[in-house]
């Protein structure tokens, strides 16, 4: 299904079966009483990746991260980092550093002491620590802040100090728990790109936990979508968005319109899905492994739908509806359209011109159409 995906990344070690994973997670579970926080997860993460664990609260993403740095012990399963089994390695001996969600800066130490803490534990001489701390503070653009206490810094500055501290020991693997969660939107966007650049420059493997799908899409080489302690899908951001493997993933990442239907035609180069919910027979321009009569779902992203007053010239995938609501969002407009079948769908259209003559507005009848490869057929 994912063969025709185009990835912007040059190297894709996960597509190469002979590549050796940097982190190898096998059958890992963590149960808290009857709650299965993490449930039998297998996962390979490769060197140099910026890997995102994406999920809602309680999905087990943070528990998985905590097992990677050794704060939580798995109920079952193994974790290997760089070929070494981590089962009995305490946190202070792992080649892993973590940037905490709360940053966990030591409030009684100044910035320089915080950043140099790990180095001092390794017994590095003072002069060397000082120069390394200077270097790190310069890297995160915090020169001259060494003498400040954490409570004298802004949220963004604390985030930088926490990052510098986590990178001080040149870890092979950096874990980041909601690294941008405490920052406001503008700062978050800036910092995202800085984080990516840093990761590229240093070549450190990053594993990022986040509940923000936009953040995951921007940052990640690959995303693992977690739900109920299991991995729902592990793919590149593009594949997760364009080729979700379940209704849950489709719905979790971005907006989606879902139509339930039954397979009426199942050919080599196309298939058809009779959907009373959409009020038509959906034409899909590629083969899908399914059997006639099978119940399936068609997931269609709002931006992949066109709307027009005149009937478009295409044989398939055209339905009529009435505009219920229009929301102007600046870069695009969002339409809520009631199809004649009764189903309400969401459509977004880019605002290509500043002034539109006679734009589509409330209570107007429109034709809704989409291409034969616009949506995804999902079995579950």
């Amino acid at each position, binding site marked *: 299904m994912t063969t025709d995906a185009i990835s912007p990344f040059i190297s894709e070690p996960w597509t190469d079966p002979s590549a050796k994973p940097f982190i190898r997670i096998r059958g890992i579970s963590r149960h808290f009483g009857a709650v299965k926080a993490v449930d039998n997860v297998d996962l390979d993460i490769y060197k140099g990746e910026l890997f995102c664990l994406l999920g809602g609260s309680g999905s087990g993403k943070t528990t998985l991260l905590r097992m990677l740095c050794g704060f939580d012990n798995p109920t079952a399963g193994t974790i290997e980092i760089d070929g070494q089994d981590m089962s009995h390695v*305490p946190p202070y001996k792992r080649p892993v550093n973590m940037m*905490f969600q709360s940053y966990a800066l030591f409030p009684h130490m100044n910035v320089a002491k915080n950043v140099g*803490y790990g180095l001092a*534990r390794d017994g590095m001489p003072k002069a060397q620590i000082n120069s390394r701390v200077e270097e790190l503070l310069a890297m995160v653009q915090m020169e001259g802040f060494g003498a400040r206490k954490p409570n004298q810094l802004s949220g963004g500055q604390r985030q930088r100090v926490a990052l510098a501290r986590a990178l001080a020991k040149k870890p092979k693997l950096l874990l980041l728990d909601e690294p941008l969660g405490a920052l406001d939107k503008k700062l978050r966007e800036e910092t995202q790109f800085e984080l990516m650049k840093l990761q590229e420059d240093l070549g450190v493997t990053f594993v990022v936990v986040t509940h923000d799908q936009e953040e995951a899409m921007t940052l990640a080489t690959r995303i693992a979508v977690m739900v109920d302690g299991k991995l729902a899908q592990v793919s590149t951001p593009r594949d997760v968005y364009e080729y979700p493997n379940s209704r849950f993933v489709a719905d979790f990442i971005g907006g989606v319109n879902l139509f339930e239907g039954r397979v009426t035609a199942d050919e080599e180069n196309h298939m058809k899905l009779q959907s009373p919910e959409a009020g038509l027979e959906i034409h899909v321009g590629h083969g899908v492994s399914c059997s006639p009569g099978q119940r399936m779902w068609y997931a269609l992203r709002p931006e992949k739908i066109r709307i027009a007053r005149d009937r478009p010239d295409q044989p398939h995938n055209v339905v009529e509806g009435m505009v219920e609501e229009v929301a102007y969002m600046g870069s695009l407009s969002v339409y809520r359209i009631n199809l004649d079948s009764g189903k309400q769908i969401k459509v977004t259209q880019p605002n290509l011109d500043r002034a539109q003559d006679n734009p589509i507005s409330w209570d107007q009848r429109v034709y809704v159409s989409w291409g034969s490869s616009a949506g995804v057929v999902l079995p579950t």
Partner: protein
Amino acid sequence: MVIAIPMIWLLVFFLIPFAVVFKLSLSEAAIARPPYLPMMTWDEEGILTFVLNIGNYFYLLDDDLYIFAYMQSMKIALVSTVICLLVAYPMALAIARANSSTRNLLLMLVILPFWTSFLLRVYAWIGILKTNGLLNNALLWLGLIDQPLAIMQTDLAVYIGIVYTYLPFMILPLYTSLVKQDESLLEAAADLGARPVTAFFSVTLPLSFPGIAAGSLLVFIPVVGEFVIPALLGGPDTLMIGRVLWSEFFSNRDWPVASAVATVMLVVLVVPIMLLRLAQQADEKKA
């Protein structure tokens, strides 16, 4: 307005009584009722005379009994505070790190002794420590000693009594400061390569300094003026300022000297604390 309430409290229950004591310390003892001469007198020509007698303070300096008692009180208070700290810290840490249901039970146990009269509990220690008391009998029975230990009426008995009595005052502030410490700080320390012991000394301990300071003051200050414990458990050598004060007041009926003793005690206690506060504030300003 809100700040006025503690101010009024301090004025009514601290400053005014202290002023009364201070005034008393400047008067002259007399066989009278009350047993001192009035400070202000009108003589027959209608002239108001103030008599300020600072002789009581010189008297304290003159007699090395008082200086000795002050020093002894300070020493006992200091040693007791250190012992309390060493005993209380692991307890407070264990309570702070226990899960919440156990924690409440443990806190209850710390506070439980307060439900019995303090005096009764000190008398109970006499029963434990005396020559044919529980402790000696137990040790004899176990064969660990063949002669009863003389603990009663020694400094050791005083230390035991004081540490026992004041331990909760050390545990509670320590617990309060330990329990609010962010757990992720210790995880961060471990993550950066600190073993548990190193993490304790570099993170937990320094962050609990406010608790240590509060607990130490809560133990040190009342112990300096402690009267009951040295009187009941200590011997004739255990001379503490509280006892001296008591005997000046009740046995000698010399209220002015007793007041002078109390005033000096207050100055001796308050001045170092104020200096400490000033140093802390200067430190905070510098940071």
